């Protein structure tokens, strides 16, 4: 029965630092029939934050397609899953998660970015999967502070990912003044699991009286208020006080925790036990245990005195809601729980790995749907579990985004000789190697195409199997600023093109929506339009979204939101990684084809940035996109495709230059001679090197030239030395990442 919690929130000490609005607080009081206790107040504050509840965004996200033959698990749990293939009679899935750690990374770049990796890795692990890859889409500003953020974030990602032994497979980075006050640090993680062995993040049937087992780092005061912190706009004056809301990463503990959890997973398989596992993220012990039980139709009773803590005397609300990193929560039959605790504490010596880290039974699953917390013998929280975790909705008003009608430009005469070096040296085009060289791309020994080698990274994740996974990311902020909806469509299309360019079959998508303040109708309108754009593109290309994340309030104290940033990752699959399209031009005498749209518009392009021009975004023709993918696949099947790049930032000639650079770096003397309208056109499509007698259907393809046996790029009659261009392209980011 519901007891009356002893400590009742009073005065400023109870209500300060919570982001709940007055109307929300009234709703809680009405439902409880009393004032909430301090613990309850902080619990609702976390659970009803945008970060946990998606209260304003959820109704729009339902528009994203999330079903299809390849979908093993759609959105709704810690991660989604896509079918990869069958090996030795077993069906395998790729687990896919996408998160943001934007706000923490702006305040403390190193720790913020590192904990971002830590959190996403747990999301994948919780599905019962082995973590096989991470990827980072990054958006940094251009001022002095942004540079400090850019360095700290990359070091944080590297130090964490390298230590836990998960390869960094893909990612991108843009530098744009729109991110001066709010960087974006998104992170994608992939896992591999047998489909029959997926673990869910809700208590299974018959779980009443099962044990709730907390595993990992000792709970400490770090990360208290993190969920609501992420749902506030950043004010530079308050960034010092906000630092307490950022968690502290411990990759060393995580490395051990991951391996111990793999051991537990194999024990559960032996015992044929269906358990539940969930990552502790926003809302801490409370958020995690409430959701994992509520989603199974249960309640929970937890004794906070059984929680392993780092310091004595922490108030119960901090133990309950604080977001200490490196923790997981299991729902297990009591007899199995004892064995699991032993594996973590004895076999993997958690208490010796980090101070007071351990696994411990802290409570049980109940059948009465109450969520009850006890502390020092008293009930400090007792609420309806569904009310706490159920869908609260907040349908916010938004302003329709008007698509600006920009007149189509007359084709301009471009000075190729002057512009090509400037384009290749542009910060958004130049080699990313100085950055990604700081990440381990090859640990686990499964890497086929490491990060930076091609448009997508590729892995062969299952020992003894040729099945392969490709991963790419996309999302151009220059596009986002011009037209949020169209930018989102382009992000889907470009992410897809990138996995196609390495020879993979696109299987599915995941997204992170990074936008401004949802309480400002014009900023929220950008979000709504972007979701519509994602839905349109994914539907047209028949690609499901299996997971995703929303990060709102990316707005500075000055009221400036980040450029609309729908960032998309595409997962592709290979039946046999022997079919990977390897990097770089291969030989002289090949035909060079430009497949796909060749519409020349300036909007969002690198040359518009360089020349200070404006224009409309490239249009998207879905039939043409599907046809272009068909031509590339046809060329692969015929064995005619020698190399390929998707056209992206810097345009068609940049894609061609990259093919030449890869050949040059590999010691092959191959160049190209082309004649092609505006070579800086970024409208999309592919540049393909094919054997001259390939016999592929060239409808929709344009032959722009051929490869040569010279270390030269000849573009519209202008000659460039590949080595000189390579040097211009490879230097700029070394200035930030020496």
């Amino acid at each position, binding site marked *: 029965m519901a007891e009356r919690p002893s400590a009742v929130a009073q005065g400023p000490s109870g209500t300060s630092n919570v982001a709940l609005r007055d109307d929300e607080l009234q709703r809680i009081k009405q439902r409880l029939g009393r004032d909430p206790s301090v613990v309850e107040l902080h619990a609702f504050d976390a659970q009803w934050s945008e970060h946990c509840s998606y209260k304003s965004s959820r109704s729009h996200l339902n528009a994203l397609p999330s079903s299809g033959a390849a979908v093993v698990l759609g959105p709704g749990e810690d991660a989604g899953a896509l079918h990869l293939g069958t090996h030795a009679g077993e069906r395998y899935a790729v687990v896919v998660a996408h998160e943001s750690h934007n706000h923490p990374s702006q305040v403390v770049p190193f720790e913020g970015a590192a904990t971002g990796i830590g959190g996403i890795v747990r999301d994948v692990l919780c599905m019962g999967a082995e973590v096989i890859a991470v990827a980072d889409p990054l958006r940094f500003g251009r001022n002095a502070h942004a540079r400090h953020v850019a360095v700290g974030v990359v*070091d944080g990602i590297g*130090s964490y990912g390298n*230590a836990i032994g998960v390869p960094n497979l893909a990612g991108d980075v843009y530098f744009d003044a729109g991110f001066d006050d709010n960087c974006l640090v998104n992170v994608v993680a992939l896992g591999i699991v047998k489909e029959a062995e997926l673990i869910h993040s809700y208590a299974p049937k018959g779980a009443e009286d099962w044990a709730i087992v907390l595993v990992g780092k000792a709970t400490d005061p770090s990360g208290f208020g993190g969920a609501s912190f992420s749902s506030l706009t950043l004010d530079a004056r308050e960034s010092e006080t906000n630092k307490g809301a950022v968690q502290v990463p411990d990759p060393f503990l995580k*490395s051990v925790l991951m391996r111990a959890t793999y051991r537990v997973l194999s024990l559960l398989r032996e015992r044929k036990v269906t358990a539940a596992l969930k990552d502790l993220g926003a809302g801490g012990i409370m958020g995690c245990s409430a959701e994992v039980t509520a989603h199974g139709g249960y309640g929970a009773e937890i004794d906070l005195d059984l929680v392993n803590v780092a310091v004595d005397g922490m108030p119960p609300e901090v133990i309950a809601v604080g977001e200490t990193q490196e923790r997981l929560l299991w729902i297990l039959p009591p007899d199995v729980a004892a064995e699991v605790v032993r594996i973590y504490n004895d076999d993997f010596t958690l208490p010796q*790995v980090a101070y007071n880290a351990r696994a411990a039974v802290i409570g049980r699953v109940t059948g009465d749907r109450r969520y009850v917390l006890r502390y020092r013998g008293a009930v400090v929280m007792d609420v309806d579990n569904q009310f706490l975790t159920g869908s609260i909705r907040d349908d916010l008003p938004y302003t329709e985004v008007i698509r600006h009608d920009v007149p189509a430009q007359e084709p301009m005469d471009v000075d190729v000789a002057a512009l090509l070096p400037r384009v290749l040296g542009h910060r958004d085009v130049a080699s990313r190697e100085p950055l990604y060289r*700081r990440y381990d791309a090859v*640990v686990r*020994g499964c890497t086929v195409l490491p990060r930076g080698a091609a448009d997508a990274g590729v892995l062969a994740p299952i020992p003894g199997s040729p099945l392969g996974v490709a991963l790419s990311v996309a999302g151009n902020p220059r596009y986002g600023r011009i037209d949020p909806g169209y930018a989102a469509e382009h992000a889907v299309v470009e992410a897809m093109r990138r996995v196609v360019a390495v020879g993979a079959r696109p299987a599915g998508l995941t997204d992170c929506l990074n936008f401004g303040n949802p309480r400002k109708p014009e900023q929220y309108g950008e979000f709504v339009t972007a979701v519509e754009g994602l839905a349109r593109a994914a539907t047209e290309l028949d690609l499901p979204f299996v997971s995703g994340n929303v990060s709102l309030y990316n707005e500075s104290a000055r009221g400036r939101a980040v450029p609309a940033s729908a960032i998309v990752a595409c997962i592709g699959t290979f039946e046999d990684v*022997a079919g990977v399209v*390897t990097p770089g031009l291969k030989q002289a005498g090949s035909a060079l084809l430009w497949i796909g749209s060749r519409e020349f518009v300036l909007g969002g392009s690198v040359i518009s940035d360089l020349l200070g021009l404006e224009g409309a975004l490239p249009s998207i023709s879905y039939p043409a996109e599907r046809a272009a993918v068909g031509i590339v696949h046809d060329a692969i099947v015929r064995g005619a495709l020698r190399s390929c790049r998707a056209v992206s930032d810097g345009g068609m000639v940049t894609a061609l230059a990259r093919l030449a650079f890869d050949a040059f770096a590999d010691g092959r003397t191959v160049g190209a001679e082309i004649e092609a309208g505006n070579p800086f056109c970024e409208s999309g499509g592919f540049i393909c090197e094919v054997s001259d007698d390939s016999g592929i259907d060239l409808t929709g393809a344009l032959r722009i030239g051929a490869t040569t046996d010279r270390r030269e790029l000849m573009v519209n009659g202008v000659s460039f030395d590949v080595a000189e261009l390579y040097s211009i392209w490879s230097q700029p980011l070394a200035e930030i990442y020496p």
Partner: protein
Amino acid sequence: MSARIAVPVFPGTNSEEETVRLLRDCGGNAELVHWSSPELLAGYDAYVLSGGFAYEDRVRAGAIAAHDRIMDYVIDAAGNGKLIFGVCNGAQILLEAGLVPGTAGLRKPTAAFTKNAPVPHFVCRHVYLKLMIEPERCAVTASLPRGALVPAWAAHAEGRLAATPERLNEIVSGNHLAFVYAHADGRVDVAAAPNGSALGCAGLVNGRGNVLAIMPHPERDGWNFNHLDRSEGESVLAPSGGAILFRSFVEALS
């Protein structure tokens, strides 16, 4: 019964799975042994220390692990002439344990793989190791051709060989310099090393020739799918590239 190889796992080790896999694919009988049961390490015929961040690289990479109970067994085995092979963090541990170059005594390091230079950052880069000793000088390399090139990935923040000039002379004169960094065509110059390593050193062997420590990871370029330039008709899953060194190790045990 083929020789048994132990791959010990310290807290923080992260390359144990692929190390065991490649040893097995090269015909070795390898298994993991966990830090909570070091006593199980007794009686193996050979030991391979894999990469990672044992004990979080506290103090200096390998410094704490060198004093772990696991190393009591490894040191004992080395003294009995058994084969010991360390890669990356495993190599750092072998140096800290004083097993290589091994000129001053146990747990008395005379050189260290330490912070990269000139930029003290983690670096992930494909490299080649060039064999600088007579192959039979070291049991692990005995099956390699003279001057062999082994493809591998450098992936470390602390891989630069550092020692006093006297100790460096000792390494050269004692034929301890087993591998240096090289380019794909076998050329050796300063640019080939990703970390500013003294002598261009990528690997060291002890005096007796039964303990080898290398910084780069051959097991990350150990199968055809890792490099995709296989010969016609060969399986994409076949060991190749860096596997040459693992195969030589396994052959030394038969």
